């Protein structure tokens, strides 16, 4: 019994309060697409395993549905233009699902 109490005393409080510090450096969070760099090749759309990225065929646009993303980072790895990167952002909650859908107009010629 004494040992247990001593262990508890030694350990102290380990719970941390929100908001926590930033996520780890390698953490794969919210995707960011730089519209200026993107050439609209849509490799990212093809590689995405969960269908979070899509592009409409009639206009140069990439749609990112953040609620479908599984944060694997394949899109960022495969983007030859380095237009997509995984950020450190881990707080993605939203009241409306529409807020999680980003429609990004890109300047690529290959679109459409």
């Amino acid at each position, binding site marked *: 019994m004494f040992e247990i109490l001593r*262990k508890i005393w030694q350990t102290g409080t380990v719970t941390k309060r929100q908001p926590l510090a930033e996520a*780890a450096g*390698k*953490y794969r969070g919210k995707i960011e697409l730089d519209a200026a760099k993107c050439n609209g090749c849509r490799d990212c759309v093809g590689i995405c*395993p969960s269908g979070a990225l899509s592009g409409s065929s009639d206009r140069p646009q990439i749609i990112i549905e953040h609620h479908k993303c599984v944060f694997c*980072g*394949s899109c960022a790895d495969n983007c030859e233009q380095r237009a997509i990167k995984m950020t450190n952002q881990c707080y993605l909650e939203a009241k409306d699902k529409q807020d999680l859908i980003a429609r990004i107009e890109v300047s690529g010629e290959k679109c459409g």
Partner: protein
Amino acid sequence: MIQLTKKQVVTRLLQALGKKIVSSTLIREHETEIVIEKTYLPEVCSYLVNEKQGRLFTMVGNDERQHLGSFVLYYVFSFDQIDHFITVKTLIDEADPVFPSISVQVPAANWYEREVKDLLGLRALGHPDRRPLVLHGDWPEDQYPLRKDFQGPVARQSDRETTMQYEGRDVTEIPVGPIHAGIIEPGHFRFGAVGDTVLHLEAKLFYTHRGIEKSSEGLPLSKALFTAERICGVCALSHAVAFAQAVESAAQVTLPPRALYLRTLLLELERLYNHIGDIGNMCAGFGFAVGISHGARLREQLQQLNEQLVGHRFLRGVIALGGLRFDLAPAEIRSVSDVLSQVEADFDQLVEIILSHEIAMDRMATTGVLSLEQAVDLAVVGVAARASGHSVDIRRDHPYAAYRQVEFPVALQTAGDVLARFNVRVAEVKSSLLMIQQVIEQLPSGAIAVPIPAIKPYTQAMGWAESPRGEVCHWLMVGPEQTVFRYRIRSAAYSNWPAVPLTVPGNIVPDFPLINKSFELCYSCCDR
């Protein structure tokens, strides 16, 4: 003594079967395939298991009507002593979709045969239990989702599920679940209890069947890897490694040594965070809050280490087909040994506290005994098997990654009770720490991945890994254009669940959560 080649050993092993074998081929270095007529199934399988000490590794039913014109059953047996698998293949005609059951001779085949009936409509004649397993009783009897010509969705019908009926008036039936009070996943347990003592337990699972095997059909291999990673939360990396190994084996590529060593390092990190968390969680079975909290705290430290290393707390997204997706820097590898040395000291204190606690010992010892015979008969794997004295460890028996290069003891206990499973986990934490140290010392430099060449359609291959709960086995058949044709996931939970109801009778009802925790089986990778 003359050294026999592997082919000679296998030939001798199969000698007694003689003319029953239509053809026998060595399809890979570690795998022989024999084709037999379906009438010989019970005889051949019983010979391999009961006389030659083979272990039912997995069984796959496959709809190959498109290119072969019939259904195919594969029974894979593992021969641990000679590091070899023998696959028994048999063709089943569409017009006569039945085959003789082997469950009476080989009890481990029970679930597999019921599943093949549910998903492919191939009926095992003479099977002692004809109830549905995967698809519950409200699924129509003539709809088989794994057939290639299946058209969904189907209309459900009235339930035809039955449970054990007790005749004596003294037996109280206690239904528990499928919705539980804790954060446990869905499973229905029906106890037949006399007073406080359990007489009989029936477990009904597969409430969260997601049809992963069906939904991954036709997926490109690189995308199917992400599905494999998400079969289960806690053995994510083991599943990913097993799938990647199946693809690598089909493509016949050799991985660079650095990738193999890093995979071993990460697999052991996965075992560590699970085992330490589980040791804490087992304390919940007897309400020992100090143990739970300390277990959770240590697990958190290890998961934060995972996040630092690969960017994901469950080690997802690090495996690629043919190696790893990114390398670990020397500084990161140094941080592994720093964190682990802290955790080890803390962990020793935690184990000391639990094992010196009288109530903990009283509750754990002689509770939920799984005998060696039961473990062998049901082909139980992992911690549960080793705690009953069944020495199976696929890291030693069929080494993969860099397990051939590191030395480690296989933890073995003979009591088969909750305490034995606790002790096996403690010993495995120690051997994981030992292994990680060896990996860090020996870690070679160089490339971390090789490209995967095009794989011939309808190539079959297996991948396996020892997850924290036991071995997982992924059986894969590659279809046209580098897609998945058939994917069979056999997780540790799938092998071990049938053993749990056997260990409960004779114990009191409040012991069940403790017994269940000591097996620590997950529902999601059993249900898939």
